[in-house]
C-alpha cells in the first residue's frame, strides 16, 4: 500500500460520509442538550428530520461534485456507478427516516437516528471500497449498526431475539469472510482488488483459492441473504422494528450488491477474455442464485406473515441479482445496481405500509390487511403498486429492472450456456411469485374488512408513501429518467 497518503484526496472522497458523521453527532447533542424535556413524539420527529437534512446535504454534495476520484491506489473510489449507488442509499435512508417520524418503538430517538446515519455511512463506504481491509471495516461498521438497530425496540422480546439471531449469524459469517480474505492476501500479497484480478488469473484451481472463495461467498452471501446463508432473514425481518427492517432490506442490500459487483470484477477476469471453463467464483454465485430463486419463491408461498413473505421474496430477488453479478459484464453490473436500487425503493414503501397497518391492527399477518382498500384507499393503492412492481408487472419499475437485468445476463453469454437456463429458471419462478403477492392484495381488495373504521395514518407517512409509489410508477413509464445516472441497456 502507498505510504504517502493524500489527505486532501481522502477528505474529498469521504466528504459525504463526513457530513453524515457530523450530523449524527449533532443529532445526539441536540437530543441530549435541548430536547431532554420535550415530548417523545417531538424528539423523534426532530431527530428524524435532522437526519433527513443530513442525508440531503450529502446527496447535494454528491450530485454537485461528480468527480471520478480514487484514494490510496484505489482503496476507495468514486466512479459514476458508485456515486449513483451512494445517492440511492442516501435517498433510501432519508425515506426510512421520514417514515419513522411517527414511530413509537424507541425511547431514545437521538441514538436511533445517530446509529441509522452510522449504518448509512457504512453502506456508502462499502459501496466505494476496493480494498479488502477497507471492505471489511466498512462492512463491520454497517453490520454492527444494524445489529444494534434490530434490538432497538427494547420492550419487544421479538426484537431482541431477532437481533441475537442476526448478530450470531452475522458475526460467524464475518469471521469466515475475514479468514477468506487472509488466504487471498497470503496468496497474492495484496489487499487491493484491482491488483488481485491480475494475480489470481490462472490460479483459480489452487486449493487455497477455492477455500478462500468459499469462505468469502459465505460472508457476502449472508449480507445479501442468499441461500444457504439466508436463515437469519425471515426472523430478523419479522422481529426488527419496521423502519429498521426497511433499512436492512433496502440500503444495506444496495451496498452489499454494489460490493459484490466490485468483488466479482476483482476476482474474475471478464468473460470476454480467454478463460478456461468457469471460474469457481462464478459457479458459487450461480449455485447461490439458483438456490435463492427456487427456495425464496417456494417458501414465500406458504407464509402468513407479510413481513416473512417479503423476507422470502427478498431472498428470491437476491437470486435474480446474483445472476447479473455472475454475468460479470459492465452492463450487467449496472443492471444489478439499477435493480437493487429500484427494488430497495419499492421495499421501503412496502414496509412503510406494513408499519402503518401494524400500528393500527397490532399484527403483520395477512388478515390484518383485510379490507385495506376500504379502510384507506390511498394506502391500499400504494401497496398495490409496490407489490405489483415486486412481482414484475409492467408498467412499474420492477418490470424494467427485471427486463434490463435478464437482457444483460443473456447478452453476456458468449459461449456459456448457463445464462439462458438460469433466465428461464428465474422467469418461471417469478411467474410463481405473483401468487404470494396477490395473497396480500387479495386481502386488501377482495376480503371484507373486519373493522370498518378508516385506518389512522399520518399525513407525512401517507405523503411519503404516495411519493414513493408515484416514483415507482413514473420510473416504470419513463425508464429513461435514470439513464443519465445509471445507464440502461
Amino acid at each position, binding site marked *: 500500500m502507498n505510504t504517502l497518503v493524500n489527505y486532501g484526496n481522502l477528505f474529498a472522497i469521504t466528504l459525504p460520509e463526513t457530513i453524515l458523521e457530523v450530523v449524527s453527532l449533532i443529532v445526539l447533542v441536540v437530543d441530549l442538550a435541548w430536547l431532554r424535556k420535550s415530548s417523545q413524539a417531538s424528539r423523534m420527529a426532530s431527530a428524524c428530520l435532522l437526519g433527513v437534512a443530513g442525508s440531503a446535504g450529502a446527496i447535494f454534495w454528491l450530485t454537485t461534485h461528480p468527480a471520478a476520484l480514487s484514494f490510496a491506489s484505489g482503496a476507495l473510489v468514486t466512479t459514476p456507478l458508485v456515486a449513483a449507488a451512494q445517492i440511492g442509499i442516501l435517498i433510501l435512508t432519508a425515506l426510512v427516516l421520514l417514515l419513522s417520524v411517527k414511530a413509537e418503538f424507541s425511547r431514545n430517538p437521538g441514538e436511533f437516528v445517530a446509529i441509522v446515519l452510522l449504518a448509512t455511512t457504512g453502506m456508502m463506504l462499502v459501496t466505494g471500497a476496493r480494498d479488502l481491509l477497507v471492505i471489511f471495516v466498512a462492512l463491520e461498521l454497517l453490520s454492527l449498526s444494524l445489529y444494534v438497530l434490530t434490538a432497538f425496540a427494547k420492550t419487544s422480546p421479538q426484537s431482541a431475539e431477532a437481533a441475537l439471531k442476526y448478530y450470531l449469524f452475522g458475526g460467524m459469517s464475518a469471521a469466515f469472510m475475514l479468514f477468506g480474505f487472509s488466504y487471498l492476501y497470503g496468496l497474492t500479497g495484496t489487499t487491493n482488488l484491482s491488483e488481485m484480478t491480475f494475480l489470481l488469473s490462472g490460479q483459480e484451481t489452487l486449493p487455497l483459492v477455492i477455500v478462500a472463495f468459499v469462505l468469502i461467498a459465505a460472508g457476502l452471501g449472508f449480507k445479501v441473504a442468499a441461500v444457504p446463508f439466508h436463515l437469519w432473514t425471515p426472523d430478523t425481518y419479522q422481529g426488527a422494528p419496521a423502519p429498521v427492517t426497511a433499512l436492512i432490506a433496502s440500503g444495506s442490500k444496495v451496498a452489499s450488491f454494489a460490493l459484490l459487483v466490485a468483488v466479482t470484477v476483482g476476482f474474475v477476469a471478464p468473460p470476454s477474455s480467454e478463460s478456461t471453463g468457469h471460474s469457481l467464483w462464478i459457479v458459487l454465485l450461480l449455485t447461490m442464485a439458483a438456490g435463492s430463486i427456487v427456495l425464496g419463491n417456494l417458501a414465500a408461498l406458504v407464509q402468513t406473515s407479510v413481513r416473512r413473505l417479503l423476507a422470502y421474496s427478498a431472498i428470491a430477488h437476491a437470486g435474480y441479482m446474483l445472476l447479473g453479478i455472475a454475468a460479470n459484464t459492465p452492463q450487467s453490473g449496472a443492471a444489478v445496481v439499477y435493480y437493487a436500487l429500484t427494488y430497495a425503493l419499492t421495499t421501503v414503501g412496502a414496509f412503510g405500509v406494513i408499519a402503518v397497518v401494524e400500528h393500527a391492527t397490532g399484527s403483520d399477518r395477512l388478515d390484518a390487511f383485510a379490507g385495506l*382498500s376500504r379502510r384507506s384507499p390511498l394506502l391500499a393503492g400504494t401497496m398495490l403498486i409496490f407489490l405489483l412492481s415486486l412481482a414484475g*408487472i*409492467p408498467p412499474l419499475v420492477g418490470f424494467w429492472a427485471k427486463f434490463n437485468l*435478464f437482457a444483460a445476463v443473456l*447478452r453476456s453469454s458468449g459461449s456459456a450456456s448457463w445464462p439462458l437456463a438460469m433466465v428461464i429458471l428465474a422467469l418461471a419462478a417469478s411467474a410463481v411469485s405473483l401468487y404470494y403477492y*396477490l395473497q396480500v392484495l387479495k386481502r386488501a*381488495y377482495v376480503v371484507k374488512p373486519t373493522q370498518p373504521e378508516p385506518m389512522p395514518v399520518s399525513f407525512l407517512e401517507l405523503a411519503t408513501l404516495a411519493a414513493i409509489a408515484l416514483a415507482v410508477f413514473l420510473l416504470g413509464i419513463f*425508464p429513461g429518467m435514470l439513464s443519465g445516472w445509471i445507464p*440502461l441497456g
Partner: protein
Amino acid sequence: MLAFTIYLSFAGALLLAFMPRAWARTARGFALIVALAGLAVALTAFVQAGGQGSMAISDQAWVPSMGIHYTLAADGISRVLVLLTGLAAVAGILFSWNIGDGEADRANEFFAFFLALIGGVYGVFLSVDLFLLFVFYEIAIVPKYFLIAIWGSTRREYAAMKLALYSFAGSAMVLIGLLAAYAQAGSHTMNLHMLAQYPFPIRFQMWVFPLVFTGFAILAGMWPFHTWAPTGHVAAPTAASMLLAGVVMKLGAYGCLRVAMTLFPHGLDPWGFSFLGIGSWRTVFALFAVIGIVYGAAVALVQNDFKFVIGYSSVSHMGLVLLGLLTLTQIGIDGAVLQMFSHGILAGLLFATVGRIVYVRTHTRDLALLSKLQLGKAMPFAATLFVIAGMASMGLPGFSGFIAEVQVLIGAWHAFPWFAIVAGVGIVVGVAYTWRAMQRAFFSDTPALDAQGMAVSVPEYDPVTWPEIAGTILLVGTSLLIGLYPRLLLDVIAPAVQSLPHALLTGGR
C-alpha cells in the same frame, strides 16, 4: 388517431379510481361515455382506412439505449380487432348497468379495472414494438384478477387466481422467447418488423417458436391449457366474462399469429422425422386445436351450469381460430381472424343473456332448475335472444359465425384433411349442445311445480331495461351485418393477411 383508444381508456380508469365512492351512478355513466368514445375512434379509423395497408400511428424513442421504441401501427387485422374491442367494451358496460345501483357495489372501482383492462387490450392490438406489446399484454392481467375476485360468483377467488397464474405463466414463456430473440438478434431492436427480418437459426426457432406460441395460446384457451377458461368465465361477473371470451382470448390468438408465427415461421417447418404421424410443431398445435374443438363441444354437452356451457363453447370456438391460423393459407387465416371477431361478438351476447338477463332475474344458472321456470313464456325477450345467439354461434348462415367457420374449414381441408373432418364433427356437436341448452333453459315441457306438486303460474320478472336492449341491438346487429355482408370485414382482413410474411401463406409447403 387510433392511439386515443388506449389513452382514453387509461385516463378514464385513472379518473374513476380517484372518484368518490358515492358517485356510483356517475361512475358508470362516465365509463360508458369513455367506452363509446373509444368505439367511435375505432370505428372512424376502421371506416377511413378501409382496405389500405398498415397505417403508422406513433413512433417515438422510449429507451433508445435498448432499442425500444413506442411504436404503434394498425394493419387490417389490428383495425378489425380494435373495432371488436370497442364493441365489447360498450356492450360490457351496458350489460353491467346493474352495478352501481347500490353503493356497496364499488362501481367506480369496477369500471376503473374494466377500463384498464380495455386499455391494455387496445394497446396489444396496436403495438408494433414487441416490448410495448408485452407491456400492454401484462397490464391486462391484473384487472382480470380483481374483476373476478371481487365481483365474481362461483368459486371466484380460486378462478381468479387460476386465471392470473395461467396468464402470468404464459406471459413468462413469451418473455423468455422475446428476451432470447432480442439477445440473439444483437439487442438493437424490439420492432416486430425489424426482428422478423433477422434470420434466426432454424435450431433456435425450433425451440423458441413452440415456447412463445404456447405462451400466447394459453390465453387463447388451447387444449390442454384451457382449464382456466371455463372456471374463469363462470366465476367472472357478466361484463368480465364478455371481455374474457370476447377480447382477452383474442389477445392470445393474436399473439400466436403476430408474434410467434411472424417472428419464427421456420418453427412451423417439419422436424425431419415423424412420430405417430406428427412431424412438426404445426401438426402438434393443429392437433391440440382440433382436440379443443371436439373436447370443448363434448364437455359443453353435459354441463348443468348454463354458464359452463358457454364457457366450454368458447374453448371449442377458439380451437377453430387456432386451427385456421395453422392452416397457413390465405383463406384459413382470413377465416381465423373473422372467427375472432365473430366469436367476440357472439360469446359476449351469450354471456350477457345467461349471466345478466337470465341470472339477475332468476338467481340460478342450473339448467335443471331453469327448466322448471318456463322461461320461454316468462322471459320471451331472453328466449328470443338466446335462440338468435345460439343459432349464430352454431354457424347458421346469415350470421357472422357461418362465414368464418366455412373459411377455416376450407383452409383446414387444404392443409389437414383429417383434422377438417374432425373439426366438422365438433361443429355438429356444437349444434347439439346449443340445442340442448336452449331446450332445457327456455322451452322445457316440465311444468312449473311448487313444493306440493301443484302447478304454479308463470312468475313475473323485472322488465327488460334499456341498457340490455341497447347492448342486444349493438351485438345482434353487428353479427347480422357481418353475416349478411362479410366483405365489410374481409376486405380489410384479406390485404393484411396477404402482407404477412410469405412463409405463413405457403400452406405448409
